[in-house]
């Protein structure tokens, strides 16, 4: 039986992890390998490194980070941020990334999805979608939620699947940071209508929220950052909880 996946997200700035694990004494502050290793030892099923570097020049540090992680970490990892064209994806693949996640770049240039999927396979490509409910409609945003687009969530999700996305990472901006649970109704609609895995993101504050994302939301995986970062929830404890509620997890 396929397990549900628990995915901690680590923020990266200028090649260093700035939001990873906040509560253990890691040898080197910001070392992507140490942070990733710690999470993988706790039972994380995958890792996401999200690059929040603003300047273009510092972007090449990302490839170095990816190479270090690929050498040392024995579970799959996704790299988000910094992919604006096919060559960026190629560079991350060569550096050893298992998957990349794209968001704003494909909203501006949807055919980039086709290009990446065709060149490297759908399994390499996660499309992240940030959306929020405006006047009863789920509107897609880009640039970290700062800029609104003409796309509606379900229409856009279906388009990215048809263009070749291998997975969808859906963040509800209404739920993100609130810690009152994921957008389960919308997750379930995505998961039931699309034939590719859906990753829940935004809203985790307690183990029950993960359970709901998998049961009500029918998500294939759940991603969270701050609850893991500040050790409000331990991955080990979370997986025990899920197992006790009959959710298949890897222990």
């Amino acid at each position, binding site marked *: *039986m*396929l*397990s549900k*996946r628990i995915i901690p997200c680590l923020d990266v700035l200028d090649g260093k992890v700035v939001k990873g694990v906040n509560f253990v004494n890691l040898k080197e502050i910001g070392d992507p390998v140490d942070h990733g290793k710690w999470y*993988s030892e706790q039972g994380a*099923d995958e890792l996401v490194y999200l690059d929040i570097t603003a300047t273009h020049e510092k972007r090449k540090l990302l490839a170095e980070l990816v190479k270090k992680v*690929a*050498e*040392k970490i*024995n*579970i*799959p990892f996704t790299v988000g941020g910094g992919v604006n064209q096919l060559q960026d994806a190629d560079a991350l*693949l060569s550096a*050893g990334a*298992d998957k990349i996640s794209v968001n704003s770049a494909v909203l501006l240039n949807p055919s980039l999805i086709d290009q990446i999927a065709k060149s*490297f*396979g*759908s*399994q*390499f490509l996660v499309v992240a979608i940030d959306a929020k409910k405006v006047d009863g409609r789920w509107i897609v945003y880009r640039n970290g939620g700062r800029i609104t687009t003409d796309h509606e969530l379900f229409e856009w999700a279906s388009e990215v699947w048809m263009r070749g996305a*291998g*997975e969808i990472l859906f963040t509800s901006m209404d739920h993100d940071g609130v810690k009152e649970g994921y957008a389960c109704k919308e997750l379930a609609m995505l998961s039931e209508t699309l*034939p*590719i*895995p859906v990753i829940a993101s935004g809203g985790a504050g307690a183990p029950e929220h993960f359970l709901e994302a998998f049961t009500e939301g029918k998500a*294939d*995986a759940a991603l969270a950052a701050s609850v893991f970062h500040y050790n409000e929830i331990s991955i080990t404890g979370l997986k025990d909880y899920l197992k006790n509620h009959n959710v298949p997890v*890897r*222990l």
Partner: protein
Amino acid sequence: MADNIAIVKYNAGNIRSVDFALRRLGIKAEITDDSARIRAASKVIFPGVGEASGTMEYLRRKGLDVVIRRLSQPVLGICLGMQLMCGYSEEGDTECLGIFNTVVQKFITGKVPHMGWNMLEDTRSELFRGMAAGSWVYYVHSYFVPENTHTVATSYYNGRFSAAMQRDNFFATQFHPEKSGSYGELILKNFISL
């Protein structure tokens, strides 16, 4: 004599991750498409993520199809590598190497790709020595090999399929040991110490 491990280099994605996994175990390997070096290796790993027809075409052009088929040392195919060791793949209507006399089919139910951690069951091979029953391994694939006479482990995804196969000196896993945490490392170690 020290082991010399060859990783078959071809036009598939993420071959380096196998090399990285071996290095974590302190094992040096050579990534090569040189027939002589592959034939001379004590163990050969045939990894891969990619598409079947284009990859077979590439292997044939390089003469590697014949080389791999005739190897007599332990060979480990991984993911696409395992599928290419079968007789035929529905992916791109592709004639494959024919080491395992079976076919590769497309998943027609459930979400595709089958992606994530799944449980390894019915394990019966030296590859899994020292592993607890029901260990989890990492998969990413859209095509699968049904259970057959060569199957030495299975997993379940809308049906039971071959998680691993074995015939004489040929071993293969559908999952990625190089991404399967400590169990994956144990499987690689078991293969290397065959």
